[in-house]
């Protein structure tokens, strides 16, 4: 499936705020957050249009910059590079074929470069498993969560923001429903975050956790070193 097929059907319109789209366009995001925002945007044409606008602003700012002096011989060196055949044959980013069966939108599929059924899910707690995708130097983590329908995620607090993008299924938090394509941004000062997975199919989410979470229960605290969040 191509990304255009992933227009949110069950989503309830929880979209990320514009300041993250500007940060994405300007190149200010970590790799983890760029993957999250790009995947989120692939569900929503309105976000794609906004990102395009912000990138056009970047283009205008770049094109309106003062002209710096280039060092002597810059153009000649550049010309020599143009004919350098090595440059012409740079391998493209490996991409899966469009027809690869995946519930994941294209940006995420390209980033993972593997099919969802090839992912190695690891036990995380009752009804829950995870795949760690990336850990940034500042402790920020990008990971996938899969939880069985009806699972109650153990209550936890946050030391940083937690961004959750629903890729399959749905869950609710305090009566708010998050469906496919929706993004939940849980604030850094929340101390009792308790999502409940909707009954039915597994819920799969792409998550960025800025800092380690605080699990509330004794059993949660006992598990924390193993789940690595």
């Amino acid at each position, binding site marked *: 499936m191509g*990304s255009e097929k992933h227009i949110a059907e069950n989503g309830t319109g929880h979209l990320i705020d514009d300041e993250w789209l*500007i940060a994405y366009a300007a190149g200010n995001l970590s790799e983890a957050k760029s993957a999250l925002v790009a995947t989120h945007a692939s569900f929503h044409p309105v976000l794609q249009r906004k990102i395009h606008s912000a990138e056009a602003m970047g283009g205008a700012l770049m094109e*309106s910059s003062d002209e710096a002096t280039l060092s002597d011989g810059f153009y000649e060196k*550049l010309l020599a590079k143009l004919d350098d055949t090595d440059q012409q044959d740079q391998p493209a980013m490996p991409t899966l074929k469009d027809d690869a069966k995946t519930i994941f939108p294209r940006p995420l599929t390209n980033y993972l470069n593997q099919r969802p059924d090839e992912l190695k899910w690891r036990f995380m707690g009752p009804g829950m498993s995870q795949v760690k995708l990336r850990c940034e130097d500042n402790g920020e983590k990008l990971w996938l969560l899969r939880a069985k329908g009806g699972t109650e995620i153990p209550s936890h607090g946050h030391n940083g923001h937690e961004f959750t993008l629903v890729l399959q299924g749905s869950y609710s938090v305090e009566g708010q429903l998050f469906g496919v394509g929706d993004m939940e941004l849980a604030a850094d000062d929340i101390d009792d975050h308790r999502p409940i997975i909707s009954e039915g199919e597994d819920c799969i989410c792409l998550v960025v956790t800025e800092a380690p979470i605080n699990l509330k229960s004794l059993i949660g605290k006992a598990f924390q070193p193993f789940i690595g969040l």
Partner: protein
Amino acid sequence: MSNSQPAFQKTNIEALTSNWQGWFSAKTNARYRNPTKGSSISFLNTDTTETLALKVAEHRDKQAFRLLFAHFAPRIKSFLLKQKINGEMAEDLTQEVMVTLWHKAHMFDPSKARLSTWMFRIARNKFIDKVRRQKYIEVDVDDHIRSMEAPEKTDTAVIQNQDRARIMSAMEVLKPELRSVIQLSFYQDMSHSQISEQLDLPLGTVKSRMRIAFQKLRIELGNF
């Protein structure tokens, strides 16, 4: 020019703001100095940067490439120098962006984006790849733009409105406190929390200013 760019130097916002007038009033596309020979080259009347890129794509036209080089390379270097990197790195990246233009010009589609937008994406991604050594995940924005349904909303009109002069004049009418958060994002590669530290403002204020600034810009550009 001095190539050193002190890391995280406190930005003088007043200086940024006063320079803005300079960027805004900078001459438009009529003539470009050829930095290698010191002579002047004129675009043909009918040429835009977009049509020159098509000539590069279709005919491997080195004269067209040279004009694009004269227009973009000094500006890309200058733009990159604002991003906490030294002159040598800025030149290396500028060279890579221009090489990419030469080899990938056939992938540029003027019905989907301005050339400056396309070049900006390349420069941004090269910067992240080479300086931060990270990947930056792309959205396939243009794929969508091509497939948008309502003809009256398409994108020729939207893209027309992304004309540099129009964007810069939209920026010009923003209040300085709104403009500065946009500038720090694009020029200094600052995260929201770095901007909040830099301007000594609460994080929430920085975010709401970014939202307001962006909304105003999009209204000015007729992009809703």
